[in-house]
């Protein structure tokens, strides 16, 4: 892999943001709305529950981290969709740019934009609701790493789906995080889920993050082994996603889909 082609893919996205600042707004606006909304909900729950449990870090912290994971996924797929929308596949894939360089560029772009969004959300949650996620210490870094990994994985799979099914399948991407959220137990412990949903959750690394975070905040023992298991699952899924994207691309070249991509349909 060469660095300059990867830098080219990233630079294109930065040019787009500079040329149209409205692209920057969604990076922070949805997160900010979630923080404000859930901040007041948790404040209300703290006032009426009388359980002694502080819902602020558990709910608001979970919302913040899940939003970050979602942004990571959408960062990859949106950067990919920019090339779909501008019908840039012919120019892009007739260049020496390799698939791994292209996907790396999408991932770097997503990491940059998602961490920017995370920083804004942390500042907002800290400033308005005194949420101190940094008090979780090194565990927070591990949580963010695992959520990044999963967001990138889903972003790559989603992009491959659009590459395989055609531009019209774009709408399939957006509900993916919502469809996953019940399984990854963002707001509740895994044990409240039916057995089959718990088994699905084991295959989804964010469930290890949110379960671990809750245990940590409730002063229970932090299951490092469980987090390591989630990381292993996440890394395997990332490798599988990369293979899936490469396989989808090679198929698109074999069938000619890349060359006539704007025709909106699978080969």
């Amino acid at each position, binding site marked *: 892999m060469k660095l300059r082609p990867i830098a080219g893919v990233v630079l294109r996205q930065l040019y787009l943001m500079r040329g149209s600042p409205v692209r920057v707004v969604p990076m922070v606006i949805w997160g900010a709305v979630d923080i404000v909304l859930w901040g007041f909900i948790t404040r209300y729950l703290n006032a009426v529950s009388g359980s002694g449990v502080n819902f602020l870090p558990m709910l608001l912290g979970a919302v913040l981290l899940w939003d970050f994971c979602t942004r990571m996924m959408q960062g990859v797929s949106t950067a990919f969709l920019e090339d779909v929308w*501008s019908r*840039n596949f012919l*120019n892009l894939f*007739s260049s*020496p740019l390799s698939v791994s360089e292209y996907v790396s560029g999408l991932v770097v772009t997503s990491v940059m934009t998602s961490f920017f969004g995370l920083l804004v959300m942390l500042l907002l949650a800290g400033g308005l609701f005194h949420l101190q996620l940094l008090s979780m210490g090194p565990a927070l870094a591990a949580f963010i790493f695992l959520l990044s990994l999963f967001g990138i994985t889903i972003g790559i799979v989603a992009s491959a789906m659009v590459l395989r099914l055609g531009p019209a399948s774009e709408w399939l991407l957006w509900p993916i995080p919502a469809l996953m959220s019940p399984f990854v137990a963002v707001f509740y412990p895994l044990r409240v889920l039916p057995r089959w949903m718990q088994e699905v959750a084991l295959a989804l690394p964010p469930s290890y993050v949110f379960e671990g975070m809750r245990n940590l905040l409730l002063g229970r023992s932090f299951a490092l082994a469980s987090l390591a298991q989630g990381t292993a699952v996440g890394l395997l899924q990332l490798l599988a996603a990369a293979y899936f994207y490469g396989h989808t691309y090679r198929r698109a070249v074999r069938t000619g889909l890349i060359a006539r991509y704007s025709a909106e349909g699978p080969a």
Partner: protein
Amino acid sequence: MTALTSPTSSALAARTADSSAHPAAIVARADAPALRVATLRKHYGSLSALDGVSFRVGRGEIVGLLGPNGAGKTTTINVILGLLEPTSGRVEIDGIDIAHHRARALERTNFAAVYASLPGNLTVSQNLRFFGLLYDVRGLPRRIEELLGEFDLVHLRGTKCGLLSSGEQTRAALAKALINHPKLLLLDEPTASLDPSAAQIIREKIKNLATRDGCGILWTSHNMHEVEAVCDRVLFLSHGKVLLEGNPARLPQEHGAADLEELFIRVAREPLVHVSVAP
């Protein structure tokens, strides 16, 4: 030279045999043509889009790829650019087999086509920088300035490509196509959207490029007068086969046609067997 070509022509067979003796050639050879296409086939089920297409483009040579709609021109270009995998056959760019060394082969080529405009939401200079990085061009800022000057785009450098006129977009696309000093340039109807004056200027620039830099050019066009003016050699493609090959000035007479346009019409309309009989 006028010759009826077939995939089994002796000259090509010799060239193919020669190249197969060095199947793993990664480093461009000084004696290699800019492009060598050998017995290219592409089948979609029972449909044959390319049926044994073979030809070469020498260094500094401009070759016209002609044929009616659906003849296989764009399919050929897509295969050469690595956008479409052939069912069988071989493509070498500057002596490098694209099937085995895609990136190295594509570093040496570039293309411009009316149907592949640059991203409209980037400015001209942003597009050139973006593609310059994809092609890993050294001395990129200087190269961008050269191309902006050469294609009269200096005053449009900060304009988004989507806001350019079709003629300006063509100039921007050609500037992108030259960003990496290609050894092989593929141009699919490069002057289709230009007025006659602008088209003539572009033709002269491209001819100079072939002469000055030794760049091999594969040019598709439906403008036969343009082809006669620009191309050193033409290939007529029909039903996925190379039907005729030769000098555009002499080819019509040799086949009893008044000019290239008449020959084109005849090739497009008549059954293959009648046209391919040499006079």
